[in-house]
């Protein structure tokens, strides 16, 4: 029984070695590892879907590996991100006209992604601080490597340097927080911590640790004011890495917070709510303000993802089931919409540099792409009937359940600001005339297929109640 439900995790654990090993049986430019990865990831995703959702404690393996409903659903989010990530990366490893690909060593690349995903798995299935910490690190360290994947790329290495230096500092913060938490509760296990918190909820030790933990994870979730690395890293890293970064690492971070807030720290959620609310409000405001006048697409997406992080934080204020299901649902939607946007940017980026200017005349040149872009942007802006709106609605609902009307109101008003800059981007695709002649865009069949699929998903996942209802049903039997 346990083995069967552990199968996905084990498979994923073994997966990097399989992929890298598959390099032995093919030449360096064949797409064989990629195919293997596809099959494997999709297999894992399917197996995850077959795991019966059990609310509450979930199943334990040995004593510190837990599969509860939140874990399983977040696993699915991570897998979706991984699959889309490798799909997006495929074109970058293909050998262009000059015979040189933009990126090398696809197998190792996929292995790194798989490692990161496994780290994320670990985070959501941990039930003691050590596993928790390890998961976070496993999820993060491959990202450093991925950021610097293009050794030739100066930007990439600068981005990676900034990323890893700040990341390690953040790790230090987390460790400090963990250590105080350990000192406070005298144990690493969440249950003991939870009971300790419940008994003595005002101990300074606890709160210092909470402060350090939030600061540390705030870095990974790009909360205010720990977000400063994000724009630079997003811009410097290769586009597919940026996409994976913006989804997987964010999902990991929010999962980390959700596990903490709804798990060991559940007893002090009430006292934490001002901090969470402030973090949410400031983050989404700053993210929106920063995105206003951007001209480079990936930097723009960085700010947009910062503000999205602010929105996600609102869900942490809600009660456990609602908050968790809101997070899961929103992460699904966010992953799909974000990847749609990055696919479009990637296709643009294959032919031009990734700026607003190179989007011009897109609606005339390739209407389908322009529509896909508009769908993605409006979804991120949270305009109904696109999925993004329903995702945000879930988050706001979670926040409003505990009566944070004014935070919700603030977030909602910020939506207007967000709409403003998303419209800026749509404008350059729909109104502006291109100056000079831009190289034409060629879409291969896979790209076309993926874009259509993702567009349909972004449109339909919202008002078609399938996803949302199933997720919610997972949390409440």
């Amino acid at each position: 029984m346990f083995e069967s439900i552990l199968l996905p995790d084990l498979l994923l654990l073994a997966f990097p070695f399989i992929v890298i090993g598959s390099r032995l049986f093919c030449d360096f430019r064949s797409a064989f590892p990629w195919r293997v990865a596809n099959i494997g990831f999709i297999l894992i995703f399917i197996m995850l879907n077959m795991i019966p959702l059990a609310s509450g404690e979930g199943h334990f393996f040995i004593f510190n590996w837990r599969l509860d409903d939140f874990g399983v659903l977040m696993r699915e989010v991570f897998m979706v991100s991984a699959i889309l990530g490798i799909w997006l990366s495929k074109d970058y490893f293909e050998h262009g006209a000059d015979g040189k690909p933009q990126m090398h060593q696809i197998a190792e690349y996929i292995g790194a992604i798989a490692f990161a995903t496994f780290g994320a798995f670990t985070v959501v299935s941990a039930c003691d601080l050590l596993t928790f910490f390890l998961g976070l690190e496993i999820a993060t360290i491959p990202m450093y490597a991925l950021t610097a994947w293009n050794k030739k790329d100066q930007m990439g290495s600068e981005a990676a340097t900034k990323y890893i230096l700040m990341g390690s500092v953040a790790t230090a913060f987390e460790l400090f927080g963990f250590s105080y938490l350990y000192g406070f509760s005298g144990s690493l296990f969440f249950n003991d911590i939870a009971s300790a918190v419940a008994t003595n909820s005002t101990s300074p030790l606890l709160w210092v640790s909470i402060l350090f933990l939030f600061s540390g994870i705030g870095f990974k979730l790009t909360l205010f004011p720990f977000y400063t690395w994000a724009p630079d890293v997003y811009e410097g890293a290769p586009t597919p890495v940026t996409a994976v970064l913006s989804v997987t690492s964010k999902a990991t971070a929010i999962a980390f917070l959700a596990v903490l807030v709804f798990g060991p720290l559940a007893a002090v959620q009430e006292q934490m709510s001002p901090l969470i609310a402030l973090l949410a409000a400031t983050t989404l405001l700053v993210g929106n303000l920063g995105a206003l006048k951007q001209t480079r697409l990936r930097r723009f997406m960085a700010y947009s993802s910062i503000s999205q992080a602010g929105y996600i934080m609102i869900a942490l204020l809600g009660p456990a089931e609602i908050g968790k299901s809101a997070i899961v649902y929103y992460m699904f939607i966010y992953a799909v919409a974000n990847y749609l946007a990055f696919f479009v940017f990637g296709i643009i980026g294959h032919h031009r540099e990734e700026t607003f200017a190179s989007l011009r005349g897109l609606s005339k040149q390739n209407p389908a792409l322009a529509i896909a872009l508009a769908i993605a942007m409006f979804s991120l802006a949270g305009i109904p009937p696109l999925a993004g709106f329903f995702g945000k609605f879930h988050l706001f609902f979670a926040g409003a359940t505990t009566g944070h009307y004014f935070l919700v109101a603030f977030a909602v008003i910020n939506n207007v600001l967000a709409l403003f800059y998303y419209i800026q981007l749509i404008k350059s695709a729909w109104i502006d005339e291109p100056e000079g002649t831009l190289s034409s865009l060629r879409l291969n069949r896979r790209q076309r297929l993926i874009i259509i699929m993702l567009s349909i998903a972004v449109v339909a996942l919202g008002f078609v109640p399938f996803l949302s209802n199933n997720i919610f049903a997972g949390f409440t039997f």
Partner: protein
Amino acid sequence: MTLMNCLILAFILFGIGVWGLMRRRHLIGMLISIELMLNAANINFISFAYFSAKDSTAGALFSIFVIAVTACEMAIALAIIVSMYRRYHSLDVEQLRDLHD
């Protein structure tokens, strides 16, 4: 030698790390300061394990894991810094100004 002393020591160590991080312009130096901060955390774990905690093994275990993890983190960091050096032929952080608004 009380818990409080150890905690204060750790905190000072952490502070030194932060200070160095702020002051240093040399990437390796910054990495070293980060190591200081991490080890401050380790001292916390050990001291808690020694003085107060119910299961004292956990703390020690944790610090060992931390050392291992930070080791590979540093490995990656150094690798990246090396590739940095290939580009800039120096390790001054002030040069990392190409990515900005």
